[in-house]
């Protein structure tokens, strides 16, 4: 009796199955844990350190101190606590990473899905525009946008989002193309299901796995692109604690006080790496060919 109950096959959802395989991947789990920690630090940054007094206010007497118990990451050339600044910087990076990727995915995804679903002239026009924008190197495109819009958080987010749109248009188009050719979509169409209903009820749920993978992998890229723009002075401006902007004068301190460079830099690397590990693990976990 007991045995029979145990051996009954369990109906596993895709989510449960994916999670089960993801949780076996140590690197991906490390990535997930770091993503959670960084998100919590960003959410509760004000509890960790006060923005006005710790992050912005300068303390000339405490400049360029080495890491110590009082200042775990040391202090910068203005005497500001680097740990406080790095923690608050997570807010910028997560905003760029998550919000800009979501926005780029929503816009690019809608265009790509429309191209794949409707085909014909709609597809031709959308893909011509996406191809045109892909011809312009991403750095040049976002730099030009920043030059025109001017520095600042909102503008940087626009520039970073814009650069991601063509990539997602293409990715989501090919994902949707693969699904639209399936028989169940044909069946839905034959049954007279409306286009919108087909897209949201039949196409999207089947695309969601690949979309999540591409989202996660793209977050790291957006974070690095935003910090690179801030590094060359075209993004977030000092004294705001953006990780790239904190490295703008790095060459000056590289010889004497490398900790000023290493901590913000490693913050970018660890954040990007966490998302990349998670995304890579997800793509393996969701790969239907690996399913047992």
């Amino acid at each position, binding site marked *: 009796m007991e045995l029979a109950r145990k051996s009954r096959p369990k109906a596993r959802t895709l989510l449960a199955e994916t999670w089960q395989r993801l949780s076996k991947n140590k*690197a991906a789990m490390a990535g997930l844990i770091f993503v959670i920690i960084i998100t919590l630090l960003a959410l509760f940054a004000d509890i960790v350190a006060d923005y006005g007094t710790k992050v912005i206010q300068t303390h000339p007497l405490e400049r360029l101190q080495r890491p110590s118990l009082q200042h775990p990451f040391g202090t910068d050339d203005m005497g500001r606590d680097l740990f406080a600044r790095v923690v608050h910087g997570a807010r910028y990076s997560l905003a760029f990473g998550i919000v800009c990727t979501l926005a780029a995915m929503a816009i690019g995804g809608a265009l790509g899905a429309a191209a794949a679903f409707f085909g014909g002239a709609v597809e031709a026009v959308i893909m*011509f525009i996406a191809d045109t924008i892909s*011809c312009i190197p991403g750095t040049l495109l976002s730099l*030009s946008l*920043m*030059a*025109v819009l001017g520095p600042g958080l909102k503008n940087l987010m626009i520039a970073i989002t814009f650069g991601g749109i063509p990539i997602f248009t293409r990715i989501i188009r090919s994902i949707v193309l693969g699904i639209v050719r399936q028989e169940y979509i044909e069946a839905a169409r034959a049954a007279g299901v409306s286009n919108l209903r087909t897209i949201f009820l039949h196409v999207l749920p089947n695309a969601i796995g690949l979309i999540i993978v591409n989202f996660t992998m793209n977050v790291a890229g957006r974070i690095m692109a935003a910090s690179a723009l801030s590094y060359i002075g075209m993004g977030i401006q000092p004294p705001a604690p953006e990780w790239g902007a904190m490295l703008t004068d790095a*060459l000056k301190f590289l010889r004497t006080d490398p900790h000023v*460079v290493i901590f913000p830099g490693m913050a*970018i690397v660890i954040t990007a790496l966490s998302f990349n590990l998670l995304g890579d693990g997800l793509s393996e976990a969701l790969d239907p060919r690996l399913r047992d």
Partner: protein
Amino acid sequence: MAKYIAGRILLIAPTLVAVILVIFFILNITPGDTATIILGPSATPEEIAILEHDLKLDRPFFVRFLSYLGDVLRLDFGRSYRNNLPVFDEIFAKFPITLKLALFSVLASMLIGIPVGVISAVRRFSFIDYSLTVAALFMASVPAFFLGLALILIFCLGLGVLPSSGLGAVTSYILPVVTLALPSSALLARMTRASMLETMRQDYIRTAKAKGAGKTRIIFKHALKPALLPVVVVLGSNFAAQLGGSVIVETVFGLPGLGSHILRAIRMKDTPVIMAVAILLAVIFKLVMLLVDVIQVNIDPRLRGRFVKREV
């Protein structure tokens, strides 16, 4: 084949017009401050108005766009707002530095990325595969400017073996090339691994196995070539991306190439220079992608069949 290539080259034209329109549009989102930037904050409204008239900035957007398009057709790219020199003279003086950076880094990323990807795929789920995967993901997570700074810290300030900035001997290219090559070799390794695994699942590989071909023979004779098809595409787009992405690396290492030139132009809203660089890079991108397709056709007999049929 020649017909196909000619057709593709002709197709660059409409894309170029669209590229010009996009950049032109972006640079004109906020019209009016170009003259202020050139003349400086002390300029009077009259001086600004005169300069705007001289630069035709007071005309409507589409009139300016069409007149610029006409200039481009006559291969006249205008003069830089900054020093009034013809834009292409300067661009061609700076371009070789950036071209060398991009070429060498693509070459280096190939030499690292493809073998790493093949090893990962062949030894799938082994300790080596896991280590190489984590190493590749790590390299893909280091932004170019931080990698550059870290390399300067290690090799110039720590070991003192390589120059950190400026353009002197050949050695001054080493660190910038490595900075560009390492992250892209990481992506290339991931790509090669995935593509190699996909190829190993194909029926013809199973056939080769069934016929008793050895593992080495299967990998190098049967799997590697088709597996490299998508990798060639990545190589091509990497090359184009690095021409544009050189902005960051040239800033870190103080190289006087196209990248630092673009950055200065963008800071000054030097429209003719930005437009010319965008056109140049877009043309190169299109030509490289055409080259990629030609290479693919030469690697893959399945694709070659299509052209033979077309010529008959």
